[in-house]
């Protein structure tokens, strides 16, 4: 099936980005990421985009597909195309390195302040450990109206990770501050767009409730 893929391209020293069209003929079941990879190998050698696991487990391929944040590797082109057109743009709220690749350091910079763990305990017949579901893809930052405009916001995923991985039931003081949970205005776009249902929005409200009712301590 024929599709027109329009990609927002940007190279260093360009004054403005350019939207470039590529015509492809692929199976509607093909993932948007596979289509982008095909374009980069066959038509546009300098197309820059991030990808690693190709099955929605690493968070590298987050991008805006027809206006909505998604992981390109688990999004089928046939499901998102409108009249055969798919527009691809990089995530919002991050500095663009080139084309669809962004610099996620503004999100990872917050980790040093909060030092989240990587595991959560699982209660079962025998205790096992589990890596947090959060892929650290940055989609919640791109979707959040606050993260886009408030540079110092710790951010939905980092707040939720800090809470869920806490080993002593406490959270760092910055979570209970204007830069932490109190920056949120309840748009819940983070939870709506999260590809793994990590529920950062609900977690932020849960933290607020626990802070208000004295059930959560800060370190």
């Amino acid at each position, binding site marked *: 099936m024929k599709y027109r893929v329009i990609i927002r391209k940007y190279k260093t020293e360009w004054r403005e980005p350019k939207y470039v069209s590529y015509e492809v003929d692929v199976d509607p079941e093909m993932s948007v990421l596979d289509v982008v990879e095909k374009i980069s190998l066959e038509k546009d050698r300098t197309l820059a985009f991030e990808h690693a696991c190709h099955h929605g487990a690493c968070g590298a391929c987050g991008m805006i597909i027809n206006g909505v944040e998604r992981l390109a590797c688990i999004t089928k082109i046939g499901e998102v195309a409108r009249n055969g057109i798919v527009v691809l743009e990089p995530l*919002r709220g991050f500095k663009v390195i080139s084309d669809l690749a962004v610099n996620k350091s503004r999100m990872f910079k917050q980790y040093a302040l909060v030092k989240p763990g990587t595991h959560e305990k699982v209660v079962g017949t025998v205790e096992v450990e589990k890596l947090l579901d959060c892929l650290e893809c940055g989609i919640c930052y791109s979707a959040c109206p606050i993260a886009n405009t408030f540079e110092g916001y710790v951010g939905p995923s980092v707040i939720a990770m800090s809470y869920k991985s806490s080993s002593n039931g406490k959270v760092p003081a910055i979570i209970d501050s204007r830069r932490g949970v109190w920056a949120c*205005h*309840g*748009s819940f776009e983070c939870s709506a767009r999260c590809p793994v249902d990590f529920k950062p929005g609900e977690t932020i409200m*849960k933290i607020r409730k626990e802070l208000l009712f004295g059930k959560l301590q800060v370190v």
Partner: protein
Amino acid sequence: MNIGYVLRSWFKLRGRSPEQVSFAARRLAGIIMALYFLAHVIDISTVVLGKDVYNSFIGVFTSPPAILVDLFLWASLVIHGVLGLYSLIVEMGIMVEKRKTLLAISWVTIVLLFLMGTWVIMNVF
């Protein structure tokens, strides 16, 4: 970061969740009310310029086209107020899982209050 970028991040609506659309509505209503408040302070303060100037300003604000402005203002007040109450509840961590139901009730309330206010405004003027 410029004003265009800020506005685009608050008001992006395509494919967005009902909570985000409500957030945008509340914010827009708040901005409108803030601008109106500014305009209102200015027009009231024309009293210092004498009775005639003041009366002519007030005349503009009570003429028929101004009724539409009043309705618009009432809508903003109702949207901002009811959604503000919704936010108050959900952002304290209460009824978070049931927020979509609460949001639906809020919008029904907004429509009802708006209709009631419209009836009042139309009949008083």
